[in-house]
């Protein structure tokens, strides 16, 4: 057995959380949490350094029997698709600790323990190669996330936490039934790779497709099961929003990539038009809602719905450009929207208002802040040179190839994006000084800079030289696509 690197990456935050339990001083808690996330990120980089981009096979695999009587194993492993998200999770974990440094001033220890627990579970979701293990990680995330929103959130936090919990729970319980049905139809195993190799009858695939769809659509979220998202985002503390937007939403799309497409290829192809329509609806509807928001956080939240629509559009275009664009866009959205929530949090810490109407002329008061805000805003609207441009371009070209109407809707959504994002930036940063002029606003300090800079680097890196990122996913995506097309063309 080789060195269990993935187990170490997944369970390091748990060990860190256990250490935190014994600390009494808040600063010690913060520094320890920071140390754990830095170490975890370093391990992820080490893992990526040893990652072989020329094969679609699972790498760094570990396998141990867990519940042999039911064929459940403890199995971890990553391919190109999950490697990208393991890295994203570790990166955002670090940024969450930095973003909570002063924003969380009560029950710091409990918060950091929840945050680290959350990180371990999210990493576990992306690494799991056993469906039961995946489900355990997936569902257990509800506990720390419920606490993060409910204990440290805004005024309406209790309602938002309940809504988040119940929506996600109801979705995932149907997924659980789907998993068990899959278990009995796929040879009594929970092994994801073995289940991928099965040929299920189309009728079974259809039922499972919808059972899985409920769970994943709630997480993405797709219209019409998106209504938990604005509440959860607005009420969650900054770190909670970053986790939600950066990683949690990706899990729905990851579920499509890991389960729906490879295990249910016929159903995925058969219902792809429906999925494209839902994606187009999310893009346009999310964009229109964002256009009407006055609350900064709500605006970014609704923009997430629209952007995740691009992701699902790319995935269900079921062609190479669409899939690669969708996956890259998942990564980009994590970086960019994570950054935007960070920026909303930073300004909220200073002014205690999120209403766009209260702002104006921030550029004079906080030039560095506004400059970076401009970068991330432009990235979010997919200006050439930024990361989202590459992703959206691929998605659009894939989308047009698959379905003209869906592609057209996506273009319209991109225009909407420009409208609400530029509108927001114009009102906040430019124009006559409002809050920014009346009060003295502190510009970003070194700690905040440390959280912003890595994200800015990735915005430009992916925007100007996306090759390394596409390389990581390329072979896995090609393999996935070939698998879907060969198995799914039976109908």
């Amino acid at each position, binding site marked *: 057995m080789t060195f269990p690197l993935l187990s170490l990456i997944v369970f390091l935050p748990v060990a860190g959380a256990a250490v935190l339990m014994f600390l009494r001083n808040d600063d010690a808690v913060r520094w320890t949490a920071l140390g754990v996330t830095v170490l975890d990120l370093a391990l992820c980089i080490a893992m990526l350094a040893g990652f072989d981009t020329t094969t679609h096979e699972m790498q760094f695999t570990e396998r141990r029997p867990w519940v042999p009587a039911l064929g459940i194993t403890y199995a971890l492993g990553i391919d190109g698709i999950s490697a990208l998200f393991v890295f994203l999770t570790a990166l955002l974990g670090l940024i969450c600790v930095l973003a909570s440094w002063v924003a969380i001033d009560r029950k710091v220890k409990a918060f950091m323990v929840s945050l680290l627990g959350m990180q371990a579970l999210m990493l576990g979701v992306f690494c799991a190669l056993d469906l039961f293990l995946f489900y355990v990680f997936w569902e257990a995330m509800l506990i720390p996330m419920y606490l993060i929103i409910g204990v440290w959130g805004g005024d309406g936090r209790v309602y938002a936490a309940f809504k988040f919990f119940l929506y996600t729970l109801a979705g995932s319980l149907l997924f659980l039934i789907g998993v*068990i049905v899959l278990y009995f139809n796929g040879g009594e195993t929970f092994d994801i790779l073995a289940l991928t190799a099965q040929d299920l009858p189309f009728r079974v695939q259809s039922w499972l497709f919808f059972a899985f769809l409920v769970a994943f659509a709630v997480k993405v979220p797709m219209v019409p099961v998106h209504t938990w998202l604005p509440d959860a985002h607005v009420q969650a503390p900054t770190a909670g929003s970053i986790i939600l937007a950066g990683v949690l939403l990706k899990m729905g799309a990851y579920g499509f990539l890991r389960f729906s497409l490879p295990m249910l290829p016929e159903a995925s192809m058969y219902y792809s038009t429906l999925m494209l329509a839902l994606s187009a609806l999310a893009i346009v509807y999310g964009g229109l809602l964002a256009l009407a928001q006055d609350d900064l956080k709500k605006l970014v939240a609704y923009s997430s719905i629209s952007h995740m629509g691009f992701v699902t559009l790319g995935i269900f275009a079921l062609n190479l450009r669409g899939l690669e664009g969708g996956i890259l866009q998942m990564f980009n959205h994590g970086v960019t929207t994570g950054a935007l929530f960070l920026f909303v949090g930073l300004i909220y810490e200073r002014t205690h208002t999120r209403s766009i109407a209260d702002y104006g002329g921030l550029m004079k008061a906080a030039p560095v802040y506004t400059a970076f805000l401009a970068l991330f805003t432009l990235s979010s609207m997919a200006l050439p040179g930024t990361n989202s441009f590459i992703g959206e371009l691929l998605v659009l070209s894939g989308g047009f190839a698959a379905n003209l109407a869906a592609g057209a809707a996506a273009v319209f959504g991109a225009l909407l994006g420009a409208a609400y994002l530029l509108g927001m930036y114009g009102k906040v940063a430019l124009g006559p000084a409002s809050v920014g002029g009346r009060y003295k606003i502190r510009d970003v300090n070194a700690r905040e800079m440390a959280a912003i800079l890595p994200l800015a680097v990735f915005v430009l890196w992916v925007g100007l030289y996306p090759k390394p990122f596409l390389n990581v996913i390329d072979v896995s995506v090609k393999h996935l696509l070939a698998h879907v097309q060969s198995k799914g063309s039976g109908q």
Partner: protein
Amino acid sequence: MTAAALFQSALASLPEIVVITGACILLILGQLLRKGQQHFLVWASVAVVLIAALATLMLAGEVRPAYTGMFIADRFAVFFKFVFYLATILTFLLSRKYADIEGIGSSEYYVLLLFALSGMMIMASATDLLSIYVGLELMVLCTYVLTGFLRQERRSNEAALKYVILGAVSTGIFLYGVSLVYGLTGTTQLDAMAAAVTGDPLDPGLLLAVVFIVAGLVFKVGAVPFHMWLPDVYEGAPTTITAFMSVGPKAAGFAVILRVFLNPLVAASDVWIIVAVIAVVTMALGSFVALVQDNFKRLLAYSSIAHAGFAIFGVVAGGADGIASVMLYLLIYSLMTLGIFGIVIMMRNGDFSGETIEDYAGLAKSHPGLALLMLLYLFSLAGIPPTAGFFAKFYVLVALVERGFVMLAVIAVLLSAVAAYFYIRIVMVIYMREPERVFDPALTPSVRATLAFTAAGTIGIGLFPAWFLRLAQVSVFGG
């Protein structure tokens, strides 16, 4: 019956003999003790249960039929007996301080618990409708008295009276069913019953008999429509007894249900349709009514109805996996329920009753450790991984889907999503409110031990379920 057969029978029922003898000795001994020496009784009772457990373990090697087919000591019975020992010992530990606070620490309290235990043990081993009846009555008569143990409280008296009357009616119904079976088949032994029926298993007389027996049994586990007594009894009884009743007698009821329902005769009469309806309605009622409860004990009463409903789904599934899933469910349910009752019992101190949910507001602030334990038990009751409660539900669902009852599985999970709401509402009260009072829990070493044990079980079985699953699977009778 020859002397050798009698000896063999006595050997097979050695654990029951130990408990009953121990209870009789303690009954006399209790009268000789002076006030203030009663703590001795707790440890003596625990010792009796431990000796019985040892005897059970030594006899666990082989299947021993006894008393001319009325009684059997098999692995199935051993599994349930250990659940009972667990429930009883933990109840003793929880009772030590609580009995002092409530002033109910007389020797009868412990002796009655031991007699109830022996009744449950007989139920788990009974293979004849009449020996089932004897065990059942021994158990419920003790719990009637224990429910009314708070003599000065109207609620407790009312609960005991309700329990006696309704319990007697249900027992009567059960006995009537037994008499019908005897009239139609000429036997009351479970195995012989199946052999005696050669004609149509859907004979209306037999069907009626089965329905009566079912009604009598589901009363004991508190399933709808025979659940009316349960919330009042749970609320009125001393909390330690509520904890005991929601675990021990419930598990004993399921032991009998599994033996009777999965008997070929009952299995052939399509009774599973009735059972499936009972499961759905029970779970729905428990989950929805619990949503509006403010009293913690009442809420746990409805939650126990909902859990009984979920376990009945395992009975519906039947087969080896179905039986094993019910057994595992009951074991896990016992641990988490005793854990959460442990906290409720411990909060009862001084003038603080800890009976309403609001009483727990802000517990996380002053007692983070206790709050974390509550969090663990509550999420386990809600069935969220990685706790044991999730695995219990998961295995029942596996058994259901295995038999093709996918729609029932969907109903079960949707109802458990409803149930999750009232558990996380308590988490909300504990974590997301500001404390309104100073908490002074009665944290004695024996309560600490109970909490540590149940918490370790709740998280331990959740993370490493393999061994316990195997245990339940090999304990399924016939296997």
